């Protein structure tokens, strides 16, 4: 669809301008001037994008784009349905995905529609069925392998890393592995230590994998379709607490060929004083914190990573060069985590010179997840933690 292509082109132009601009920067002396220049370039490009899509949309219908409310679960369900329909080689396997309609109902209705051949219930044997899924990908099928939660992927992690991620490299390009591993990741509510771990950092560590972590329904839909169409192993980290959350989706997003680019972050909210970088459910918390802080005159720019690997460091750098302050927010543990990687990259790149304060991480507490509600609530980053950190970093 040409509006999607146009969007892509504009993303590229934006990227190019930002990179070119970064190269021209030589000193901090005209910092605020440059920041506002950057902001103007970005605004121009953004409005250019919207202008293009509005113009092109007019070619399709005379009415304004209809918004539909879709929750994350249904977005995932529809994405899988459409991809199953589009390509016969796509199939889904996992525990309870077929006759039970999915442990979290993400695959509801699919077995009824596609039958035993395409939607396969497996026994509770992760290492075995993950290996089978990878083998099927070797032989040319396009499996979606569901882990009931990513905690159980540890039983199968050898197949994900050693059999899936590394094979294209080891075979020098002879053997691609077009597989998607998906399931809910990170903390839920009251499921305690063995069922609450976040695996973004673990899988994000490994070359040969793409690791995706959607936040809202548009992310879920566009990224899952992209993942299924990708010829490489994709680790797709959903979030159980987001499944039931509704979001407005435009007609463009609801199109059956709507895909989002893997490896591109999105600026969910423009701001000038500080950059908040996050992924998955914490993006929502950042936006809530930003709303509260706005009342005190602090404008946060919120970046939704969307993809953990490859990390879109350029978008983060451009934002930091504009705001001069960085806070990363994640649900996972701090040590060797996603935030740690972002901070290291910022240190090593051009954005370091723009920091007016050290970059700081807001993370899950460094403990196994406790059960009691009061303890669980204090084990994950809360909105007040984000606000507190922003104020600390801004020296307020």
């Amino acid at each position, binding site marked *: 669809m040409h509006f999607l292509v146009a969007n892509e082109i504009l993303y590229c132009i934006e990227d190019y301008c930002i990179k070119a601009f970064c190269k021209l920067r030589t000193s901090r002396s005209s910092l605020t001037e440059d920041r506002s220049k950057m902001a103007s370039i970005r605004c121009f490009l953004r409005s250019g994008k919207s202008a293009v899509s509005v113009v092109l949309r007019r070619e399709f219908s005379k009415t304004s784009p209809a918004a539909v409310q879709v929750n994350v679960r249904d977005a995932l369900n529809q994405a899988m349905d459409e991809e199953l329909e589009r390509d016969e080689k796509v199939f889904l396997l996992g525990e309870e995905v077929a006759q039970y309609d999915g442990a979290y109902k993400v695959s509801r209705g699919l077995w009824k529609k596609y039958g035993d051949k395409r939607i396969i219930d497996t026994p509770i044997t992760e290492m075995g069925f993950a290996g089978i899924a990878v083998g099927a990908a070797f032989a040319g099928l396009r499996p979606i392998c569901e882990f009931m939660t990513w905690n159980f992927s540890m039983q199968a992690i050898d197949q994900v890393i*050693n059999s899936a991620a590394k094979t294209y490299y080891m075979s020098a390009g002879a053997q691609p592995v077009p597989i998607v591993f998906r399931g809910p990741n990170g903390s839920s509510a009251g499921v305690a230590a063995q069922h609450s771990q976040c695996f973004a950092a673990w899988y994000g560590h490994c*070359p040969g994998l793409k690791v995706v972590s959607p936040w809202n329904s548009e992310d879920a839909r566009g990224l899952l379709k992209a993942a299924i169409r990708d010829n*490489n192993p994709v680790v797709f980290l959903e979030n159980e607490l987001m499944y039931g959350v509704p979001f407005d989706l435009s007609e463009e997003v609801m199109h059956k060929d709507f895909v989002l680019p893997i490896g591109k972050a999105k600026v969910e909210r423009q701001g000038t004083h500080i950059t908040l970088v996050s992924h998955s459910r914490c993006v929502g918390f950042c936006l809530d914190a930003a709303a509260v802080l706005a009342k005190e005159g602090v404008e946060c720019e919120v970046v939704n990573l969307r993809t953990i690997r490859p990390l879109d460091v350029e978008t983060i750098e451009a934002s930091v060069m504009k705001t001069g302050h960085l806070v990363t927010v994640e649900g996972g543990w701090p040590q060797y985590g996603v935030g740690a990687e972002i901070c290291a990259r910022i240190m090593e790149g051009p954005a370091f010179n723009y920091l007016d304060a050290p970059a700081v991480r807001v993370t899950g507490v460094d403990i196994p997840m406790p059960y009691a509600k009061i303890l669980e609530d204090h084990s994950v980053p809360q909105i007040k933690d984000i606000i507190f950190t922003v104020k600390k970093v801004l020296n307020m």
Partner: protein
Amino acid sequence: RVLELTGCAASMVASSRSYADFTPEATFDIKKVDLHRLEEGPPLTATLTREEGLKYYRTMQTIRRMELKADQLYKQKIIRGFCHLYDGQEACAVGIEGGITLSDHLITAYRAHGYTLTRGGTVREIMAELTGRRGGIAKGKGGSMHMYTKNFYGGNGIVGAQVPLGAGVALACKYLGNDQLCVSLYGDGAANQGQIFETYNMSSLWKLPIIFICENNQYGMGTSVERSSASTEYYKRGDYIPGLRVDGMDVLCVREATKFAADHCRSGKGPILMELQTYRYHGHSMSDPGVSYRTREEIQEVRSKSDPISMLKDRMLSNNMASIEELKEIDIAVRKEIEDAAQFATTDPEPPLDDLCSHIFANDQPFEVRAATPWTKLTSTS
């Protein structure tokens, strides 16, 4: 042994003969196969044509000499890292291939050089992969344990992981309805892996066209089967899966059993399990002398009584299916092929540094890869 008499006396005459004098085909008694949950097994005789015999002889000899050359190169430090040699087990790879076709699929563990050859790889590209050169079958990126050809999925380094992968390939065969099957190999050491039992379960539930093959060479690294397994009857370990225990040193036994197993799979009956009783002359890998856990006498005994190549040679000679000279000529040709391959493998340049980061992702735009320091720029291409 059934002897077919022709006009001339058998193997003793040294003069040259025209090919019309050779026996075109002979039938041999082969060892009875032990059966598990099967009423009938493979036939008790196997028919071998002269052509087949020469082909099996040449292939087994090629594997043998290739592995011995690899041993040499390893000791000269031209091959490094892991090197698990297959000499002694040649009848398995060659016999299996005799029972399936190249449009069937196969996956094995790390003792894979022989299979890479029988599955269509050349000695040149196998040896160049061992020496880590750009002409290697995996362009030097994989090494001994990671070689691939069409319908051959390696070469896998993690013990047991290849078995579910093989079942996945079999699932694809069934899904696509192409009447193909997958042979999934593992050793006596791997036979105790949990994921193999998970695979037995799913393959049986879903009636996947998979032949499980346990190459039992008596030792998992330095641990004998008695010390690793509560049950050493590996052909029965599939429980509800029918099983066969086969003499893995006899290429004809292996071939007939594989044909039998392939028929079973293709008729839609689901998986079947074959245990091949075989032996490796070398240690587990090049860093294992192979005599701390078994005696030299044992190795010597197997060599003299059960060597697969000698067994085939004796059969062909005593049935007038080939002459000693002819087989010697094949030996010479094989030696030359190996020498040429070794020459290539030692002179071909190493992969270019440009290739360092390539092949991370398939069908992707080139992208930047983080190097050892932030200032070095590396690019990955598909």
